[in-house]
Structure formats: structure tokens, C-alpha cells
């Protein structure tokens, strides 16, 4: 008699990889064990395809249902999800599409997938209050240089070689004229995605602004981030981000670069 752990291991393998060992544990009568297991496999595959379709609506439109479903099935077998919270699972699909040989004919597909994912994440990320800019005024100049910002959970940064924001909008609007007008050479694009008033917002940033924003969102101290970003009006960028609620909190590094002192979280 298998232990529960052994049984579940075998059934999981059987359902994901169609391994025959699962059927040996299951009663076969007028309906074969394999046919009984197939009912579960079909439900699992259909559920994950639906979840991916909801997270990747533009990819689904671009490649069509048949291609999407076959890609999703290959993805599921290669990388089954690890949590009931499928939001943590979905981003790997964009990386998968990047390497999926059958998708190579659409060079911008992985970029559109990353944008799809960033939008989906923005829509469902936890709620958090925006940082009140007045709190920064209480710091002296030396402290301000050592600020590390905490980005809002809905904020995502996407860089793509092609104009995937224009493609994304045209595809989801099913706007053939807009699609035809897209110049694939109009790239790379540097995008900021966030939730504002309940909806997702996609903005194109200048490359230096995007790099500065990415550094700040990664928690790099303000002065380091500005120096690394090159030619950019850092004050203007910061002001815009603060007004738009890109950050929710900040900490200040101790002078000498030790552990940051918490200011608000």
C-alpha cells in the first residue's frame, strides 16, 4: 500500500506528464483508470489555460486560441505551477514564450507577453497608500541623498525591442487600421505600468528616465541612482512619480552605508 506522499507524487506525475504509474493506484472497472484520470487532467489543463488567457489577453489575440492552448500545454508540462496563487506563476509564461521555438515567427510576442503580465499584475496587486511627498521635506539634504524608495506593488517596468504598447492597444481594441500603422522599427520602448483609479496605465518613458525609475524601484539609494542614470532631470522625474503614486514608502540609509533606517512602511 503506498503512503499518501507516494500516492500523491505518482498521481501528480500521471496528471502532468501522463505517466502510466498513476493508473496502477486507481480502480479500473467499466471505466478504465486512465479514462478516470483523464477527467482530472482535462480540468487542470483547461483551468490553467483559462488563467493564462486572462493574464495574457493580447498574446491570446495575436496567436489565436489553438496556438495559445498548445503553447500553454507545453508550458504546463515543463513548469507546473507551485502555488494556488496563480498570480505568482504566470510571469514565467512570458519567458517561456521568449524561448518557445514555435513562437519565433513573431519577434515581438514575448514583449507583448511581458506587457500583458505587467498589466495583469498592476490590476491585481495589493492596495497601498501613496507616499506623502511632504514626508521627504522633513529630511536634510544629506539624508535625502540616501533615500531608498519602496515602489507601489502595482508598478511594473517593461523594456521591449518593438513598440509593444502600440501593438497591445491595437490588438485588444481589435483595431486593424492601428495595427497596420505600426512601424516595428519604432523601438525599443521603455514602459512604466501601474494601477491608477482601479485601471491599468501604460506610459512610455525616455530611456534615461526609465533607467532612473528602475534603479529607484529596485531600492537603490537616490544619489547612486541619479549618478548611474546619466543625463536626466531627476527632480522632475521624482516629482512626477510622487504625484502619480509610484512610491508608497521610503527608508534612509545610515551615513556610511549601513542598514537603512526605517522612515515609513
Amino acid at each position: 500500500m503506498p503512503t499518501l506522499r507516494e500516492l500523491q507524487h505518482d498521481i501528480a506525475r500521471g496528471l502532468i506528464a501522463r505517466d502510466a504509474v498513476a493508473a496502477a493506484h486507481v480502480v479500473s472497472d467499466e471505466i478504465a483508470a486512465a479514462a478516470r484520470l483523464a477527467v482530472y487532467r482535462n480540468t487542470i489543463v483547461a483551468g490553467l489555460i483559462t488563467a493564462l488567457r486572462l493574464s495574457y489577453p493580447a498574446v491570446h489575440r495575436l496567436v489565436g486560441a489553438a496556438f495559445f492552448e498548445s503553447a500553454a500545454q507545453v508550458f504546463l508540462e515543463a513548469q507546473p505551477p507551485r502555488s494556488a496563487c496563480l498570480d505568482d506563476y504566470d510571469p514565467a509564461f512570458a519567458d517561456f514564450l521568449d524561448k518557445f521555438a514555435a513562437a519565433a515567427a513573431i519577434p515581438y510576442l514575448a514583449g507583448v507577453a511581458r506587457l500583458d503580465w505587467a498589466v495583469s499584475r498592476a490590476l491585481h496587486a495589493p492596495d497601498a497608500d501613496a507616499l506623502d511627498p511632504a514626508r521627504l521635506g522633513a529630511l536634510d539634504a544629506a539624508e535625502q541623498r540616501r533615500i531608498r524608495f519602496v515602489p507601489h506593488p502595482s508598478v511594473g517596468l517593461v523594456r521591449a525591442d518593438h513598440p509593444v504598447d502600440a501593438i497591445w492597444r491595437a490588438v485588444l481594441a481589435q483595431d486593424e487600421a492601428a495595427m497596420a500603422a505600426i512601424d516595428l522599427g519604432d523601438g525599443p520602448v521603455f514602459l512604466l505600468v501601474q494601477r491608477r483609479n482601479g485601471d491599468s496605465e501604460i506610459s512610455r518613458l525616455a530611456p534615461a528616465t526609465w533607467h532612473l525609475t528602475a534603479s529607484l524601484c529596485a531600492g537603490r539609494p537616490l544619489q547612486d541612482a541619479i549618478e548611474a542614470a546619466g543625463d536626466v532631470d531627476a527632480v522632475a522625474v521624482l516629482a512626477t512619480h510622487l504625484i502619480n503614486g509610484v512610491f508608497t514608502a521610503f527608508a534612509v540609509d545610515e551615513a556610511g552605508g549601513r542598514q537603512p533606517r526605517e522612515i515609513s512602511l
Partner: protein
Amino acid sequence: MPPFAAARTECSPIPARAGVGLRFPHHRAVAETRPDVAWLEVHTENYLGGGTTPAWLDAIRRDYPIACHGVGLSLGSAEDLDRAHLARIGHAVERFAPALVSEHLSWSVAGGRYLADLLPLPMTEEALAVVCRHVDETQNFLRRPILVENPSTYLRYRHSAIPEWEFLAAVADRTGCGILCDVNNIYVSAQNHGWDASAYLAALPPAAIGEIHLAGHTVRRLEGGVTLRIDDHGSRVAPAVWALYAEALGRFGPVPTLIEWDTAIPPLETLVDEARRAQVLLDQAAEKAGHADAA
């Protein structure tokens, strides 16, 4: 990880009346038209994040008692519960202050891989001990009892030794959890495995029954002309399930009853109409219970 303190907001108890499952396409209609149903239930996992989805529920729960029905905790996994997921459930329970919290007698996680379905357990002493340990852990973490729902199943394991109804009753007895009696699931499993649905109902402890589920199912024809009933929640409740529901009410008395519909979701009015049918039977059961009390 600290357990959650008592819910910060008041929650209305779920009455022994008919409610419907709240699904995304009906958020606006429910908030704006306030349909005549006694309560609503959501899939907990759909409301774990932020943004507009949980905001709808924040608004709707001001007008209706709410139940949170989980599908992702995998109470029957041999490995440990996913504590991060349990914490997410805890946050949702704190935010929405549901009157009932429920999960399933099933598993969906093995070796850290999540299989997005409610898979059947082997009916063994080992599995019973595992489920009881995980129900205890969940109830301790949430600081409240939960309800555990009987599954609909399409297979049995060769080494299963305990009837499912005894297994479920033992979980309730050992952990103090309640039972979410899914009458459609009992009917589907009984048909698929040749069980006696009435005997299943008779084996459940009436005092533990905290909620009843009703839903539609389909009959799938397989090779060789054999059929399997599939619990797809995509149609009206079948006549035979209504009959079994009346039998359940006769045994358990009036119990909060939910209409579930998850595939090919119809207009809200159809769900409200199904709830109205359940309410007629609930009213009859309440009347009988009243007569019995008076006698």
C-alpha cells in the same frame, strides 16, 4: 507567524436561507440591484489581491452576509500546508469578516507542484490523520472553526478502506470542524461509484452540518456507452438533486443553502430563481421543524 486576532469588522451570521455564489460578471448587478437572496459566497482565492475586485466585495458585503469558500489550501496533501497561502487566506478573512469559512476534503499540491483541481483522497487512516492535522492547523491559525466540503469524485483508489461518509464524519468529530454538505456532489459521486446517496446523508452528523451546496452537473458519455457524471456547475440543479436536497433538509433541518454556478454563468436572475426554489424547500423544512418543536 502570528494567528489573526478576531475580525476587526462585524459580520452578520448566515441565516438558514438560500444564497448564491457571487462571481465576477455579477459584481455590478449585485451591487446596483441588490437581488433578493439571503447571503453570498465567494471563492476566497479570487479576492486575495488589491484593486477593484476586492473593492466590489468590500461594497457588497455591507448589504449581505458573506461566506468565503477556499479552493487552494489542499487540506489533504501529505506535505505541510502552504503557510504563505494560509496567511493570504487569513488576510482575506480579516478584511471581509465572513460569517463562514470553508475548504474541501481534497488535495491539489504534491512535491510543491499545484494541480489546479480538487483531487480525491485515498480513504485511509493515514489520509484521515493528515486532513485532521491540517484542519486543526487552519482553525488554530484563523482562530475559528471552518467547514469542510465533501468532494465530487470520478475515481477511487485500490487501497481505500474507509467509506467517504465515515471519513468526513470522523474529520468533523476529531477536529470540531463543521461539514459543508454538497448535495450535488453526493449525488454525482453516488452515481459514479454505485453508492447509496440516502445512506451517505444518514451517516453524516446533523449537528455538524453548517451549510449545503447545490449546483448543476452534466452526464458525460464515454467509450463503450458508459456514463460519468461531471460536477461542472454549469446548469440548473437536476431534479434528482432537488429530491435529495429535500431529504437532506428532512434530516438536518433548515441549513444555509448556496446555489453555485461557475461555467457558462447565466444572468443573475437565473441564479436568484434557483435560490428561490431552494427557499421554498427551506420554508417547508422550517415549518416541519416548527411543528416538531410544538408537538
